[in-house]
């Protein structure tokens, strides 16, 4: 194609620069060029006759000319002189519309005396498969399917509307509720191998408040430099051992207010208040949960990949209505909390510690289950208190794998003490996920 354009240009150049020369010589040259054009036309015809796959198409220039706006380029078609491209992008290009796929493996081992909540010595605790993709100009979807050793569970699967007016964001689907901090986190982003006692006793453990529903959130007006976000959620109302919907009207609701502020470029504070209400599994009444959480993070930007510190704590109060009414007080109000710290002392190494304490109803279920059966000698609304402490060491061979050890000592309300070593191997493949924050 370039040759076709060059010929008239060169001819014009000759004509302009050599006006005095013999015109016969010029005509001869032009004739020779005409011959070459004919030969090239024949070549092009031959090439066009071949199937597209056999045509060797020149690769696009590595350094394109100065770019123009994409819209402009699309409207004008390929620039003159651009290499001839035959055929479309090919069937393989359709795969670019496939979602981002990732798989995260979580292998967990336990040694020592597990007392009331003994976990298996070795287990492929969870294999989480994620599918994430933009749906259309208005929404994106995220699916996380969790495979245990025996069963499969849709951990989360929701649609997020990203283009709503008034700064609103709507999520629809099954999702982990925005109650506190730990409830919203997937297992693989926890800073421990387990969930704190308060989560196990009052929030259905690793299953958590994870239900089908709608979530509406908005960034609220606040003084400069403060991020204030309000979230309101409505769920079907089923959370094992916490809420149970016997009727359509038994929906559960969750509200969360988050306040975040940068103290300086390295340090920030994140505070939250949560509320949840749902129908009691034990009586025709409503249970309530209240939570407060605080997180302090430090990460010096110049050495962000080598050093960081995160301190976090969460307090949860529950008000659970029990049935049948065997005493004058068919309500229990257990309380629990944890405080935890994690210090990154080298690029691949993290040291952590956690203290947790939580009450639980004498006859209420926990996750994992507490083996001791309901003690009928105690009143139905009696509270037992579990206390635990953990030391953790985490090593990252790379950004995509993690090895963690946790020494955990727990004194259960029944008087038993567990001393355990938990160890965990986590690994991810596929699409690069976002770093947890």
């Amino acid at each position, binding site marked *: 194609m370039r040759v076709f354009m060059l010929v008239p240009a060169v001819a014009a150049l000759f004509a302009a620069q050599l006006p005095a020369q013999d015109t016969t010589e010029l005509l001869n040259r032009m004739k020779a060029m005409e011959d070459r054009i004919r030969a090239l036309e024949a070549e092009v015809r031959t090439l066009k006759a071949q199937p597209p796959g056999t045509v060797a198409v020149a690769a696009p220039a*590595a*350094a*394109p000319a*100065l*770019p*123009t*706006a*994409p*819209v*402009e380029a699309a409207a004008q078609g390929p620039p003159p002189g651009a290499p001839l491209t035959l055929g479309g992008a090919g069937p393989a290009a359709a795969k670019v519309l496939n979602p981002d796929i990732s798989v995260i493996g979580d292998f967990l081992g336990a040694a020592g005396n597990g007392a009331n909540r003994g976990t298996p010595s070795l287990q492929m605790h969870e294999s989480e498969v994620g599918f994430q993709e*933009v749906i259309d*100009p*208005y929404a*994106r979807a995220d699916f996380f399917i969790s495979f245990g050793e025996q069963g499969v569970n849709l951990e989360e699967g929701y649609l*997020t509307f*990203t*283009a*709503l007016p008034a*700064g*609103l*964001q709507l999520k629809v689907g099954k999702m982990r509720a925005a109650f506190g901090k730990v409830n919203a986190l997937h297992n693989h982003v926890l800073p421990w191998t387990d969930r704190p006692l308060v989560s196990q006793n009052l929030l259905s453990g690793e299953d958590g408040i994870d239900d089908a529903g709608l979530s509406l959130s*908005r*960034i609220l007006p606040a003084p400069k*430099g403060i*991020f204030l*976000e309000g979230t309101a959620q409505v769920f079907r109302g089923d959370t094992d051992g916490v809420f149970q919907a016997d009727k359509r009207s038994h929906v559960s609701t969750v509200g969360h207010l*988050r306040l*975040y*502020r*940068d103290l300086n*470029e390295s340090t*920030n504070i*994140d505070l939250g208040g949560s509320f949840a209400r749902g129908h009691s599994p034990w009586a025709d009444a409503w249970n309530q949960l209240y939570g407060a959480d605080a997180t302090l*993070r430090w*990460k010096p*930007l*110049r*050495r*962000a*990949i*080598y050093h960081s510190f995160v301190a976090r704590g969460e307090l949860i109060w529950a008000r659970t209505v029990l049935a049948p009414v065997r005493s004058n007080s068919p309500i229990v109000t257990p309380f629990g909390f944890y405080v935890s710290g994690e210090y990154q002392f080298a*690029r*691949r190494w993290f040291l952590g510690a956690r203290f947790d304490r939580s009450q639980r109803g004498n006859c209420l279920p926990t996750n994992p289950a507490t083996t001791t059966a309901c003690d009928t000698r105690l009143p139905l609304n009696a509270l037992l208190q579990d206390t635990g402490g953990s030391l953790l060491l985490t090593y990252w061979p*790379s*950004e*995509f794998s993690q090895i963690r050890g946790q020494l955990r000592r727990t004194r259960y309300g029944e008087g038993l003490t567990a001393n355990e070593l938990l160890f965990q191997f986590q690994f991810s*493949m596929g699409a*690069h*996920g*976002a*770093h947890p*924050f």
Partner: protein
Amino acid sequence: MSKRLFASSVLLLTAAAGITQAASKLNVMTATQDLASLAREVGGDLINADSIAMGYQDPHFVEPKPSFLLKLQKADLLVVVGLQLEIGWLPPLITQSRNSKIQVGAPGYLDMSQSCQILEIPTGQVTRAMGDVHPLGNPHYWLDPDNGRRIAKTLAAKLSEMQPANAAAFAQRYADFDKRLAAAEKGWEAKMAPYRGRKVVTYHRSWPNFCDHFGLVVVDYVEPKPGIPPSPVHTLEVINTMKREGIKLILVEPYFDLRAPNKIAQDVGGQVAVLLPSVGGVKQVTDYFQLFDYDINLLVSLFEKVK
């Protein structure tokens, strides 16, 4: 009294005009300070430009802090480096920004890698056994002034598209930038000319475009693989390579630990150059021109030392 009234009216009108002008300014958010600097070059006072990652932090590992959401929420245009440089932190920020203008594919989302010359595009099989590879190509492309020019030109076109009334001003500012960059490039190239073909070792693969433009040859890396910290065995290999090939200079980004590079430099009798990959890498480097001034002056002085 009437004079006072007149003065107050003038003041009010001026203030109102100021507000109108401020309201019509485009809010441009960029992933890095380099892109913000180039946006300021072509946008001048007609835009507000701000960035997320600081020039002295590793752009692969930025925390997606909610405070960034406050800025992204108001952005008219989000300019990203692309090629998965920001994959660990920008996607959740975009989703949570509640700003439909800057969602991927929307008119206010501009992936600058689409307009630049990209090096190290992997061919053949790509696996994470190769480290934290960028399967779409090396994202540190802004370190070639020719790409800087392409970025500025693309930004001028985008800003003109978004605000046609100021198109002439953006075009004029781009033309002026182009002229100044051409003049500066001559100076940088003249300074680097004596060292063309010199071999260097770099910590991370941040410098292919820079080295390609200024004629330096990268022979090895302090990281055994992208994203993997230096190991004793690999460090020894680097020392041997440098000794064998007479290499004396190691280029390191300001956010990496200097222990391994210093050890290597000590063993080979060389120097460590803490070169800035981004505007804002040190306080005094506040724009794209100063970035190259700083890096080239440092390189020239160290090349002189290790002659």
